[in-house]
């Protein structure tokens, strides 16, 4: 996960400028991790870049030219971004509410509730996606209740379309919002809220003027994580989506496994990586988000 690495490096760089000596001593503790990351992450990544510029054993940018002139690539690219941004927005909205609730609980109860947030994490994404077909389907739990109460006309199309994709992906992404936002909310100084209360502010005003603005770094950190994960989504859109919900990962899968065109697969992967990196660079420099990475 490149952005995570990026976040860490930036954090480290900032610390280093603050306390050079302490960091210098600690550097050697990071070396094994760096070597491991280099071997299992950078080397394969280097191969992907290499393959993206290798056509029939020769250096060539044909792979990228093919992609940029392909209507399909463009369509899939737009779809990937639409799905990713939509899922991220829904996840941030719902995840924030959960985090806010968790932050107001007494610590012992919070632990239990955090476990429940983590629960979807421990289930295979394939199993979860299939489970959703049983919940959201035409004869699933939701539609059975609706048609029992209101007749056949009340049946909702919750699956094999964009709604199904967003539900499935949000279910996976929410923990990635809850934890950074929760950490932020718990770190906020209670005295600020107390002071506002004493000055006569109502809860909504306190939230809008103090809690929410202060939590923006947490929101941005969670949202970026969601976005990056979404760009690589694969199984959930394939199982819960409709015919239009084709992701870039599905294209990469086609070129890698079905047609053995590793040049095009690598070129697609590199394009996705570069665009993601660019997007992260832009988003992380938006005003008010600077503290998201420290």
């Amino acid at each position: 996960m490149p952005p995570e690495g990026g976040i860490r490096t930036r954090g480290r760089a900032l610390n280093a400028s603050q306390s050079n000596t302490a960091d210098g001593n600690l550097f050697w503790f990071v070396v094994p991790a760096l070597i491991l990351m280099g071997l299992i992450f950078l080397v394969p990544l280097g191969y992907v870049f290499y393959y993206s510029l290798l056509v029939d054993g020769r250096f060539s940018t044909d792979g990228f030219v093919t992609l940029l002139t392909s209507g399909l690539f463009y369509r899939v690219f737009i779809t990937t971004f639409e799905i990713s941004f939509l899922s991220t927005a829904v996840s941030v909205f719902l995840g924030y509410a959960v985090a806010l609730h968790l932050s107001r609980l007494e610590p012992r109860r919070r632990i239990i509730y955090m476990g429940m947030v983590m629960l979807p994490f421990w289930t295979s994404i394939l199993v979860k996606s299939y489970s959703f077909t049983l919940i959201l389907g035409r004869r699933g739990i939701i539609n059975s209740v609706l048609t029992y109460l209101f007749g056949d006309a009340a049946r909702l199309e919750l699956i094999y379309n964009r709604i199904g994709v967003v539900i499935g992906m949000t279910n996976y992404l929410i923990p990635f919002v809850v934890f950074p936002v929760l950490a932020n909310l718990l770190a906020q100084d209670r005295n600020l809220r107390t002071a506002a209360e004493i000055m006569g502010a109502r809860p909504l005003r306190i939230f809008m003027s103090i809690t929410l603005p202060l939590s923006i770094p947490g929101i941005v950190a969670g949202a970026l994580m969601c976005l990056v994960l979404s760009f690589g989504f694969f199984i959930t859109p394939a199982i819960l989506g409709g015919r239009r919900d084709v992701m870039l990962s599905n294209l990469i899968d086609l070129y890698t496994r079905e047609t053995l065109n590793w040049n095009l697969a690598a070129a697609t992967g590199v394009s996705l990586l570069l665009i993601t990196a660019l997007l992260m660079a832009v988003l992380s420099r938006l005003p008010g988000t600077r503290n998201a990475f420290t």
Partner: protein
Amino acid sequence: MTTKKEIGLIGRRQFTAGLGAAALALPFYARSSAAQDARILLPTYGGSYQEHLEEAFTRPFTKETGIEVVFSGVPDLARLKAQVASGRPEWDVFEAAGSWFPTGSEEGLFEPLDTSVIDSEVIRGKGDYALFYQYIACICWNEDFHSADQVPRTWKDFWDVEKFPGRRTLRNRADMTLEIALVADGVEPDKLYPLDIDRAFDSLERIKPSIAKWASTASELTTLLSTNEVDFGINYTGRVKGAQASGTPLQVALDQVVVANDYIAVVKGTPRREAAMKFVEFVLRADRQAEFANLDTDIPSNPTAVGMMTDEARGWLPADVNSPVHIRQDDLWWAGRTEELQQRFLTFLMN
């Protein structure tokens, strides 16, 4: 006494060096023992399919030759290509369905088959892979929701949404789907190739509004039909048999089926080439093929085996498999065209 002294003399550094040397030597040790043809590896799809392979092929093979057969991973042409490129393939035998084999043959991923032990009738490509068996895709429905007299039985019927209203499913891949679309549009199944691609996509355009889900995996088909997400859909007889065994009343129409191919090959550069070749010869024997077909509802590639199948197993085959009403998948035609046509297919789906 000297030994004791020596042990005592081994310092920490020497010990570490020894450990390092042992670690370095380990892969060579593992390699030399594996090279003894004592066991071969092949990938498989797992589940009941793997059980059928074990019962009909691998266990009897081990009993006859003493060579152990180990299943490892899922068939994947990209992984195979990477293994062959590394010069030390993990798999010795490769077995899977469809146009992977012409493609793999082009890429040089398979060893030439030994024609002295393998019947040339089943050998395909550059003589480097063999037809293992043929499997059947057909129209399927759920008896809980439809009785047998209200369902489409041919692909033309399947396209007739007025006579047979209902939601449908097809696979989200071009191969097989284009063939079906052409036959639904009136092309004779025995005059399909070369496929009239434009006509196939025009035909698909007509059925598109009735396809509730273009299934990305084979197992989705059974789920969609079991839960009545769709009324009718394509499915594979092997999967339907499995669903019936677990109590889901799926039924199939064998009036007009698609006969598709599954192949087997020996992986290029395997150090256990001889054992792998023996295994390929073994699985193509008539008695083994018949036993497998009895378990898995397939058409054996060895014609002698068809006569040795049980009546129950033959019930899963169309009355006349060779009848011109059935679609016979031509993987050779697809090799080299998959990328272009699958991209066009995805574009069609997204429009």
